[in-house]
Each structure stands twice: as C-alpha cells, then as structure tokens.
C-alpha cells in the first residue's frame, strides 16, 4: 500500500534508529579512548605504587632469597583477575608476581606502555624501573577489560532504543496523521461535492505544500466550468437556430396542403425539399462544430499532411455544385504542400471555405483556390466573385450563427466558425479581405512552418 503516513513513519524511524546507533558507535569509541587513558593512568600509578612499596622490601629480602618469586593471591574486585604484575631485578630474574601474571616477561620493552600478546590474548603493559635500575616493575591488564567497559557504556545507550522505538512509532504515527489532516479535509470536501458544483475549494489556513495542489485543482474546476458552460451555450444556440428552419418546413407543408392550385402545391413542396436540405446542412455543421469544440487545445492527432492533395479532393467533390451554378472553380497549387496538421480537419476547413464561396457567388461567377509555398510556409487563399463581406462585419462573421444581412443564400452561419476553430487548432492565422479588383471575398489562411 502506498501511504504517505506509513512512508513517513518508516523513514523517520529509520533515521532515528540510524542516528541512535551511530551515536552509540561513536560513544563506544569515544568512551573507549577515555577509558584507555584512565586505565593507562591507573596502570602507571599501580606500577609506581608497587615500585615504591614492594621494591624496597624485595631489596632487603634478597639477601636470604634464592630467587623464586612469591605469589600474591588474588581477591576483591571483579576486574582484578585481569590485572597482573611482575617485579624483576637488574639481571631479569623474577622476584615477585601476581597470581594472574605469567612467568615470562610480559613485555620486552624497557619502560613505558606497550601492547603485548600473552597466551594469545591482547594485553596492555607498563614497565617501570627504579632510579638505580635494580628493580623492574611490569604491570599489565587485558584489553578485554577496557573493551568490556566501553561496550557497556554504549550498550546502555542502545537499550533504551528498543523501548523507545515502539513509543516513538506511535507518536510519529499520530503526529503525521495530524499533519496530514488538511489533506483529509479537502478530500472529504471534494468527495461531498455535487457534480454540478464547480465553485473553487476553500483555501484559507491551508498549508503551503497543499496550497499548490489546491490551486491547481481550483484551476481545473474553473476550466471544467467554462467548458461545460460553453457546451451548454452551444446546445442552447443549436436548438434555437433550428427553430426557424423547422418553422419554415411546417409552414411550407401546410401551404402545400391548402394549396389552391397544383402550381402552388408544387412550389410549396419544392420549397419544402429545399428547407429539409437546409436543415440537414445546418445539422451537419452543428455536429462538425460540436466535435471540434472540445479539442480546443491538446489532443488532436497531428501528422504530415499534403494540403495540395486535400485541396484537389475537396474541389473534385464540390465541382458538381459549382457546375450547377455555372461557376468557374479553379485550383492553383504546386504538386505538394506539406504541413503538420490533422488531415480530416483540414479537409473540413477547405470544404467549408470552398462551399461558402460557391454558395455566395452568383451564377457564372468565379471561385479560385490557391496554395502558395514560400520558405516552408504554406498559404491557402480562397477567392470568390460574390458580394464579399463589408469591413465592419469582418470580425463578427466568425461568431456562431452570424449571417450577413440580405444574404439570400441558404447558409448555416456556422461555416466560418468552424474554419476559425480549425485554424486555431493548427496555430494558423486567418484573415479576410476583398477579392480581385475589390470584388468578392478573399479568405487567407497562413500555416506556420511547424504548425502546432
């Protein structure tokens, strides 16, 4: 299970344990060092005491001694077994030794401290001679004593850890829990939210670390809200826009029923068919726009597209419509014009522009489509010989459902909205102008070299 609390707990416990153990180790060595000094001092002192006390006696006793050392029995302190001493004369013969000392010299050194191995065990030996050089005292103890003491100190430090760790664990668990409570509060707040409620979340008294998450969340909520709002508006607009075409259908049908003459009936029925075609076209445009709207941004599939090929296809499709109105439809383009884009969308864009041009151009007019490739930039232009768009309306025509006054042509008012949308997705710039000799409309789409 991936839990912040558990992670923190384990991490903190690990750090504490590691620190504790490191301290214990450090103290072991530090204490050991101090103990060494202390014991060395004691050793030296013992030697001096021995020399002072026994040396003198032994000198006197030597007159009637045959050289064999007397033993001194061990007793008392628990450490004593490991402390040993030897007293020798200037010839090296053993005069006196402790019970725990060996017979041979403990260390070869003439004076001072030395580390020696006696019977396989490490010893610390101190050698001291009297002023005349007649007596040599050697005092030694096993390192083991010192190690034990240092270890004992370190152990005393580690022992509490065993007890403290579970207690610490519980305390840390609670503390972390408390620290993470703002997260819990926010997640419960979000969980209780009504899906329709996209208002921002409360941000007061929120810790810095969570603040950025909260901010990002509120940002997302706002974007969602706007997207939903845009969709609602779109649906409302669409339904609204369909009313008039539907009204026309109903009325024409009723006129056909009440017709006073066959001619009138036929005219009404013809109008009815035109009306259905118009409503169909509008519905198609609405669907296209609806499919495009959510893609304002990221997830559009982009690939290398040949705009020239797309243009040829679109013109081929629309040629019959142009022919019916006796409009001259021409394409001027290089063999290929490649940009990075979405082929389907580009086809829709071209289709809408050329379709518009054909619709609004009167009979026997012209529609010219041209592709210009210049320094890696592709420019698409659609010119027609229709009424054009007056300058003051050029900004508004991209609004949905906006139609120019007096335009008899059965358009939906959505074509340019769709074109603008696709241009935006491709990061292409769109501009309107006048056609040849100031007549008609010129629509220019400039695709940047690395569109999107």
């Amino acid at each position, binding site marked *: 299970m991936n839990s912040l609390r558990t992670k923190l707990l384990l991490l903190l416990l690990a750090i504490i344990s590691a620190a504790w153990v490191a301290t214990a180790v450090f103290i072991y060595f530090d204490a050991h060092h101090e103990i060494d000094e202390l014991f060395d001092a004691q050793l030296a002192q013992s030697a001096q005491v021995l020399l002072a006390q026994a040396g003198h006696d032994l000198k006197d006793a030597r007159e009637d001694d045959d050289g064999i050392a007397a033993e001194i029995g061990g007793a008392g302190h628990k450490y004593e077994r490991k402390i040993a001493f030897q007293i020798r004369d200037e010839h090296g013969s053993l005069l006196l030794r402790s019970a725990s000392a060996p017979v041979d010299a403990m260390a070869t050194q003439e004076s001072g401290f030395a580390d020696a191995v006696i019977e396989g065990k490490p010893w610390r030996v101190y050698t001291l001679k009297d002023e005349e050089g007649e007596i040599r005292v050697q005092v030694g103890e096993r390192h083991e004593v010192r190690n034990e003491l240092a270890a004992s100190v370190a152990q005393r430090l580690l022992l509490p850890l065993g007890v403290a760790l579970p207690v610490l664990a519980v305390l840390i668990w609670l503390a972390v829990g408390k620290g993470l409570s703002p997260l819990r509060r926010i997640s419960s707040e979000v969980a209780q939210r009504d899906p329709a409620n996209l208002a921002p979340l409360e941000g007061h008294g929120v810790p810095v670390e969570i603040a950025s998450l909260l901010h990002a969340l509120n940002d997302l909520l706002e974007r969602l809200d706007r997207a939903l709002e845009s969709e609602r508006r779109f649906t409302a607009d669409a339904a609204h826009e369909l*009313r*008039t*075409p*539907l*009204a*026309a259908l109903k*009325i024409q049908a009723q*006129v056909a029923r009440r017709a006073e003459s066959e001619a009138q009936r036929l005219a009404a029925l013809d109008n009815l068919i035109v009306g259905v075609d118009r409503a169909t076209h509008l519905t198609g445009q609405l669907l296209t726009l609806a499919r495009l709207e959510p893609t304002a941004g990221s997830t559009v599939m982009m690939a290398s597209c040949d705009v020239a090929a797309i243009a040829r296809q679109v013109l081929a499709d629309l040629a019959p419509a142009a022919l019916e109105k006796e409009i001259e439809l021409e394409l001027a383009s290089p063999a290929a014009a490649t940009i990075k884009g979405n082929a389907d969308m580009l086809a829709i864009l071209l289709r809408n522009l050329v379709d518009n041009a054909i619709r609004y151009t009167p009979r026997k007019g012209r529609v010219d489509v041209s592709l210009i490739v210049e320094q890696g930039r592709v420019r698409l232009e659609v010119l027609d010989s229709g009424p054009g768009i007056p300058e003051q309306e050029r900004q508004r025509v991209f609004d949905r459902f906006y139609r120019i*006054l007096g335009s008899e042509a059965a358009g939906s008012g959505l074509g340019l909205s769709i074109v603008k949308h696709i241009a935006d997705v491709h990061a292409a710039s769109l501009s309107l102008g006048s056609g040849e000799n100031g007549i008609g409309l010129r629509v220019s789409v400039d695709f940047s070299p690395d569109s999107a």
Partner: protein
Amino acid sequence: MRLLLVEDDPLLGDGVRVGLQQSGFVVDWVKDGQAAKLALQAGAYALVVLDLGLPRLSGTELLKWLRGTGNGTPVLILTARDTVADRVNGLDSGADDYLIKPFDLDELSARIRALLRRAGGRAAPLIVHGQLEIDPATRQVTLAGKPVELSPREYAILLVLLENAGRALSREQLEQSLYGWGDEVESNAVEVHIHHLRRKLGTELIRTLRGVGYLVDKA
C-alpha cells in the same frame, strides 16, 4: 385586409406569405427592420406579423418605435425565443400576441383574425350587419340566411367597409387595402367591385359620398 409580414428567413417568409394569402389576406413581405419601418411609414396596414430576430433593426426596437409614434396597428410576434422573460419583454414592448416557432399556419390565421376582430371593435367572431352575416374564418357571406357568392376582392372591400362602419373610405384607401406592392391595379377596379356588391347585396348597403368615398352606415 392588408398585412405587413416582417421576416428575414426566405423559406419561412415565403411560406407564411402564401399561407396567409390562402386565408384571404393581402400580404406585403419585408426582410429587415429598416424596410419594415419604411413600409409602415408609407402605408396603412390592418396588422403586422413581426419576427423578432431581424437584422439591421431588431423586432423589439421596431415595435417600440411603432408604438412610440402612436401607431396602434395590431402586432403579432413570431419568434424562436421561448423563455418567459422573452415573452414578457415582447408583450410589454407593445405586441398584441405571440407565437413561438415552429407554429401552425391555421393557428396563425386564427390569431390574426382574433386581433383584427378586436381592432374592429367586435367581440363576436361573426360580423353582423342587419341582415348581413359574415364569418371571417370561412369567408362565408349570408344575406337573410341565404349564402352569397363574392369574389375575393369583393369580399375584401366589403370587409374593410364593414370594419370601418360609419367612416367613409376613399377609392385610394380601398385600393391600398386591396393591393400589395406587386399587384397591378386596374384604374376603375374599385368602382366595378362596388357595383357588383350592390348588385348582390342591395343598393342601400354601400353609400357613395361624392368627392369623399364610400361608406357603410353603422348597424
């Protein structure tokens, strides 16, 4: 009766115009608010059918202008806007009735007749004048219980005279109510029609005031 239709959609406008003509009205059709203004300034209409969603001058603005000039011509609104707020706004701006698209042609005709009835000061649908009875819905005319056949133009003139009973209407005024913009007016058509009416309905009904026009006395 001459109506002004203000509708920008070509198919709907055509349908409504033909449909209302089928119902016996004469219809002038304009496609934007400015043109409507000019038409209203130029001629007298019995009623205006007005679409609110117009280019150039919105329907509501046109309505406010119309009422502002003191013009009381009945106005029936056609619109796609269906919220209560829109309805209230439309009626408060001076409309007399309201139809939401899509609507029924028969209902439109009936509502127009109702508005004309009220404008003519009548409450009952039937127009009764002495022995004369007219049902505007069916355009049936009966005199003393016996049905009378009238041509569309004769009917129209009779109706206008009866709606304006007690007032003399000049030849020009009668022509105005009979003919739309596209129609050819024969020079003495009105006299001919009056003549026919007198023949069919009796000579006392329609009086001639020399130099003024024709009138029908109040019942």
